[in-house]
C-alpha cells in the first residue's frame, strides 16, 4: 500500500528531534517502569488496604439542596448489627474544624464556614450530615437508613444570575451570594474599542463537568492511639498539602501525621483537595483508636467530590476591518457551588491571563464574579481556568473571522506573536519565553490536508448534502508549570510553587530519586529515572523513584497544573548536578588530580590529558560509603537535594485542527479527523507525552460533545450516576493524529514545558468551532456545549429561523 501513514511519520520525526544522541535517556521511548504492577493486578489502591480491627465509615448525605437541620438522631443506627459508632455534625462540632480554602482571591472575599459535617444547615444535595462506623462496609451502609434527620426545607438557588439577585441566600450570614469580584486590566479597553471597525460580542456557557477519575476517592486512617500518631492513606494528588491541612484543620501536630498516597487511580484535579471525609476519618480514628476506612461509591462521589468548569462568559472582541485585534473584554460569572474548597475561587484567575492567548492586542479587560449556589462545590478540573479562557478566545476568533469574511486561520496568523518576537510580554503582563506558532501550524495544516477538506466542505455545501463538513481550529497556548512562588503570592495564594528533589547514592551505585511530586498516572517513575540516568551517567534500570509518602519523601508540593516535570523534574536534574559536583571533588582526591582537571562524561570521572586515570560514579559512590580516603573537611556523602522555585511559568502551545461531519437531520456529530501538533518543549519520553495528549484530547472532546452535569430547579443533580453522566467510550472517540514541534523553554535548564493539560485545553474549541463551521451557512453562530444531537438540532431550528 502506498498511502501515507501520518502516525508512523509522526513517530519517526519526533524521535529524530528528541534523541539526536542514542546514548542519552532523555528523549527515548522508554516503556514504563510503573506498568508491571498495574497490568498484573499487584496494586496498592487505598481501598485495598486492610488493618486488624479496621472499621468502615459511611456518610449520610443531605437529600435536599438547602435546608435547616432541626434534629439528628443516630441512636437507632447504633442498634444495628456491626455498628461501632455514629455521629452527627453536632457530635463532632468541637473536633472537626472547617475545611480549608487556600486561595482568598480578594481581601473582601466572602469565605463561608465549611464544617466537614453540616451542623445547622445543609447547602447542597450530598452535604454530609452524619457518619456511621461499622465492622464492614455493608453494615455501615445499612445503618445509614436508621439515622433520623428532620429538615426544614429552604429554597434552592442553582442559577448564577438568579443567585446574584440575592433573593435566596446560600449563606444567610454572609448577606450575599457574591463571593468576590476580581478585576484585572492590561491597557485601556475603551480606548482600544474606540478605534475599532468591528466589535463582536458573544456569551459562551462552560457547562458543569464531573471529573470522574476511574478510582473513586478513598481514605484509611491508622492511628497509634498511645502516641497520638496517625498514618493517613488517601487517594489524593496532594499528600504533602493534605498533611499540612489536616494538621491545621484538626489541631493534630503536623509531625504526628504521616500521609501516604498509595497507587492513585487518576485525579484530573478532583483529588487536588482536602475533603470532608479525610478530616472525618481522622477525627473518628482519634475517637475510636482504631483504623477507619471510607471509600466513596461512584454515585456518592458525583455529589461529594468537586465538579469542574461552570462559568458564564460574556466576551467582546474589537478589531479593525483588516482583522488587526485591538482589545478584548471579558466578564465572567464563575459558580463556586455551596462552599469554597481548596482552590475554588482561584480557578477562574488561572484563566484571566490566558484570554489574550497567542495574540497581540492593546488592551484586555477582565472581571470575574464568584457566585455561591446550592450545588456541589467546584474546583480545579484538568486545565483549571485555562480551558475556559482558551475556549472563549478561540471561539470568538472564529466569530470575528466570520464577521470579517476572513479565513479563520488567516485571522490568527495576522495576530499571533511571531517566532522572532520572543520573549514577548503580553497584554496580560506575562512574558512568554519561547514559541513557534508558525511551525506548529504549518505541520498541522499539512497533516490535516486543510485545503482538501475545505474543498470537500464547499462541495457538500453546494450539493446541499444533509451531512455537512465543518473545520475547527484551535491555536492555543497555556500557562503551566505552577508556579513562581512570588507570583502565587501576588495572587494571594496560600503557598509557594516550588518543588523538591533529593538524590540518594547507594553504596552499590544504585540511585534513589526522592521527589515531592505525587504521580497518579503520569509516569514520573519512568521519566525521573531517565532524567537522573542522564545527569548521573547511570543505567536507567539502576534508578528507583520514591514519592507520595511524607515520611519517605518529606518535602513536596505535589502534582497538578502541569507542574511536575517543569518544577519537580527540573529539581531532580539540578539535584543530580549537585551530586556530580560532590563526586567530582571525591574523584579528584582519589585520582590525585586538581578538581578543575577532572571531567565527567558518560558516568565516569577522568583527568584531562590522561584518560586512563578514571573512576566510575559507582566507584566514587562506594568510596564515599567507605570514606576511608576522603577529601579533608568534606561531609562523607554524595546525597544532595534541590528545591526548585521556577522563575516563570512555562507556555506550551500548539495547533489543533478538527474536521466534523454534522448530520443536519439528526444533529449527530462525528469527528472525521483530528490533528494535534503540540509544542511542549523538550520531551523526556515521547510515549508518555503522546499518552498525555491523547487523554487530554479525550477529556476536551468530552466537554465539547458529551458531558454535562445538570441540576433541576430544586438543586437535585439529575446526572448523578455514570448512567446519566456520559463519559465517552472507545467507540465514541476517533483516532487522533498527533505530532510535535520542539521549541525548548528558556526558563529552565531542561527546556521542558509540561503536557498534562494541553490536550484538554486545546481540543474543546477546535471541536465546537468545527461544529459551528459546518452549520454557519444555516445561520448558526453557536451551539451550546455539549454539542449533543439535541443541542445541534435546536441550534439548527433557531438558526434556520433567522
Amino acid at each position: 500500500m502506498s498511502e501515507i501513514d501520518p502516525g508512523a511519520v509522526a513517530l519517526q520525526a519526533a524521535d529524530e528531534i528528541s534523541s539526536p544522541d542514542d546514548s542519552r535517556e532523555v528523549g527515548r521511548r522508554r516503556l514504563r517502569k510503573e506498568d508491571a504492577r498495574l497490568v498484573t493486578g499487584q496494586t496498592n489502591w487505598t481501598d485495598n488496604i486492610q488493618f486488624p480491627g479496621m472499621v468502615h465509615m459511611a456518610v449520610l448525605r443531605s437529600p435536599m439542596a438547602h435546608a435547616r437541620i432541626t434534629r439528628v438522631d443516630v441512636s437507632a443506627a447504633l442498634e444495628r448489627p456491626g455498628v461501632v459508632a455514629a455521629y452527627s455534625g453536632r457530635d463532632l462540632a468541637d473536633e472537626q474544624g472547617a475545611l480549608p480554602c487556600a486561595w482568598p482571591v480578594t481581601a473582601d472575599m466572602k469565605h463561608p464556614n465549611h464544617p466537614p459535617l453540616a451542623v445547622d444547615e445543609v447547602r447542597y444535595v450530598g452535604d454530609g450530615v452524619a457518619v456511621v462506623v461499622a465492622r464492614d462496609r455493608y453494615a455501615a451502609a445499612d445503618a445509614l437508613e436508621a439515622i433520623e434527620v428532620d429538615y426544614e426545607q429552604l429554597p434552592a438557588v442553582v442559577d448564577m444570575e438568579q443567585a446574584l439577585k440575592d433573593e435566596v441566600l446560600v449563606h444567610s450570614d454572609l448577606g450575599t451570594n457574591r463571593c468576590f469580584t476580581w478585576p484585572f486590566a492590561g491597557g485601556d479597553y475603551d480606548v482600544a474599542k474606540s478605534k475599532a471597525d468591528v466589535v463582536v460580542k458573544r456569551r459562551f456557557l462552560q457547562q458543569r463537568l464531573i471529573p470522574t477519575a476511574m478510582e473513586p476517592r478513598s481514605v484509611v486512617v491508622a492511628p497509634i492511639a498511645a502516641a497520638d500518631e496517625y498514618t493517613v492513606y488517601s487517594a489524593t494528588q496532594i499528600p504533602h498539602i493534605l498533611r499540612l491541612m489536616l494538621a491545621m484543620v484538626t489541631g493534630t501536630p503536623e509531625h504526628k501525621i504521616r500521609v501516604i498516597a498509595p497507587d492513585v487511580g487518576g485525579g484530573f484535579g478532583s483529588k487536588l483537595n482536602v475533603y470532608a471525609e479525610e478530616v472525618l476519618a481522622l477525627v473518628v480514628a482519634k475517637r475510636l483508636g482504631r483504623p477507619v476506612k471510607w471509600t466513596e461509591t461512584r454515585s456518592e462521589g458525583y455529589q461529594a467530590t468537586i465538579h469542574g468548569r461552570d462559568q458564564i462568559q460574556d466576551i467582546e472582541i474589537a478589531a479593525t476591518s483588516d482583522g488587526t485585534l485591538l482589545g478584548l473584554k471579558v466578564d465572567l460569572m464563575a459558580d463556586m457551588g455551596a462552599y469554597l474548597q481548596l482552590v475554588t475561587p482561584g480557578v477562574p484567575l488561572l484563566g484571566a491571563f490566558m484570554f489574550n492567548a497567542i495574540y497581540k492586542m492593546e488592551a484586555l479587560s477582565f472581571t470575574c464574579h464568584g457566585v455561591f449556589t446550592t450545588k456541589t462545590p467546584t474546583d480545579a478540573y484538568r486545565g483549571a481556568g485555562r480551558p475556559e479562557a482558551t475556549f472563549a478566545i478561540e471561539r470568538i476568533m472564529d466569530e470575528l473571522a466570520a464577521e470579517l469574511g476572513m479565513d479563520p486561520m488567516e485571522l490568527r496568523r495576522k495576530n499571533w506573536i511571531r517566532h522572532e518576537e520572543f520573549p514577548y510580554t503580553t497584554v496580560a503582563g506575562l512574558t512568554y519565553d519561547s514559541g513557534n506558532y508558525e511551525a506548529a501550524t504549518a505541520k498541522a495544516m499539512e497533516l490535516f490536508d486543510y485545503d482538501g477538506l475545505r474543498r470537500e466542505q464547499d462541495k457538500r455545501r453546494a450539493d446541499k448534502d444533509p451531512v455537512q463538513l465543518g473545520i475547527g481550529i484551535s491555536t492555543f497556548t497555556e500557562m503551566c508549570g505552577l508556579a513562581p512562588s512570588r507570583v502565587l503570592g501576588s495572587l494571594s495564594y496560600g503557598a509557594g510553587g516550588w518543588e523538591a528533589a533529593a538524590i540518594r547514592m547507594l553504596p552499590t551505585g544504585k540511585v534513589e530519586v526522592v521527589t515531592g511530586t505525587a504521580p497518579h498516572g503520569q509516569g514520573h517513575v519512568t521519566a525521573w529515572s531517565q532524567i537522573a540516568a542522564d545527569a548521573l551517567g547511570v543505567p536507567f534500570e539502576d534508578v528507583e523513584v520514591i514519592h507520595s509518602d511524607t515520611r519517605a519523601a518529606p518535602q513536596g508540593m505535589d502534582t497538578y497544573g502541569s507542574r511536575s516535570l517543569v518544577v519537580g523534574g527540573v529539581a531532580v536534574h539540578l539535584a543530580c548536578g549537585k551530586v556530580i559536583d560532590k563526586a567530582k571533588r571525591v574523584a579528584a582526591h582519589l585520582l590525585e588530580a586538581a578538581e578543575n582537571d577532572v571531567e565527567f562524561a558518560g558516568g565516569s570521572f577522568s583527568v584531562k590529558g590522561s584518560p586512563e586515570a578514571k573512576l566510575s560514579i559507582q566507584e566514587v559512590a562506594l568510596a564515599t560509603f567507605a570514606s576511608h580516603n576522603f577529601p579533608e573537611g568534606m561531609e562523607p556523602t554524595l546525597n544532595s537535594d534541590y528545591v526548585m522555585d521556577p522563575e516563570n511559568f512555562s507556555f506550551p502551545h500548539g495547533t489543533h485542527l478538527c474536521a466534523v461531519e454534522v448530520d443536519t437531520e439528526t444533529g449527530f456529530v462525528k469527528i472525521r479527523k483530528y490533528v494535534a501538533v503540540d509544542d511542549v518543549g523538550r520531551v523526556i519520553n515521547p510515549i508518555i507525552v503522546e499518552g498525555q495528549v491523547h487523554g487530554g484530547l479525550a477529556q476536551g472532546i468530552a466537554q465539547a460533545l458529551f458531558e454535562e452535569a445538570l441540576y433541576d430547579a430544586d438543586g437535585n443533580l439529575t446526572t448523578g450516576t455514570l448512567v446519566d453522566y456520559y463519559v465517552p467510550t472507545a467507540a465514541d472517540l476517533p483516532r487522533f493524529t498527533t505530532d510535535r514541534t520542539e521549541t525548548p523553554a528558556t526558563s529552565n535548564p531542561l527546556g521542558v514545558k509540561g503536557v498534562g493539560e494541553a490536550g484538554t485545553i486545546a481540543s474543546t474549541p477546535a471541536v465546537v468551532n468545527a461544529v459551528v463551521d459546518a452549520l454557519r451557512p444555516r445561520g448558526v453562530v453557536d451551539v451550546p456545549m455539549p454539542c449533543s444531537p439535541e443541542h445541534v438540532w435546536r441550534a439548527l431550528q433557531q438558526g434556520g429561523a433567522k
Partner: protein
Amino acid sequence: MARIRTTVDGVRYDDDVEPRLLLVHYLRERLGRTGTPVGCDTSNCGACTVHLDGKAVKSCTVLAVQADGAEVTTIQGLATDGEWHPVQKAFHERHALQCGYCTPGMIMAAVDLLNENPTPSEDEVREGLEGNLCRCTGYQNIVDAVLQAAGQLKSGEAVRS
C-alpha cells in the same frame, strides 16, 4: 449465609457468604484478590471485569453465590507460569495504561473480545470495549494494544489512518 465453592485463579475456596455479597467484594475482601478494583456502582465502567467460566462479567453485577461451582479468573491469574498474557504484554508495549485503574477490567474484557473474535477490525475493538471506561488514555493506545495482541499490528507499528 450460603455455602459456595469457587476456584479463583486456580485456587479452590469454600466459604459461607451473605446471599447479597457481590462477587467483586468477595474477591477483594474475603479472598484478598485486590487486583480487581471497583470503579462504579451502576455497571458502567467495567473496571471490575473478570472471567466467570471463561466469559467476561462485571463482578460488581454478579453475586458471589452465582459464582458457586464456577471458575473465576482475575487479572492476577491471567499470566501463565510467570509469563504475561499477550494482551498484558501489548498493554505495556503500547503504553495502553496511565493510572492503571481501568487496566485489569480492560485487559480481561479485551481477552474475552479476542476469544470471541481473534482478528477484529479497529471498529470492532472500539465497539467491543464499549463497556469499559478509561479516563486517562483516550483509548487509542488501548485499541492499538488489542490489535497488536491479535497480531493485526506489529510491535511498534502505527495504524494507518
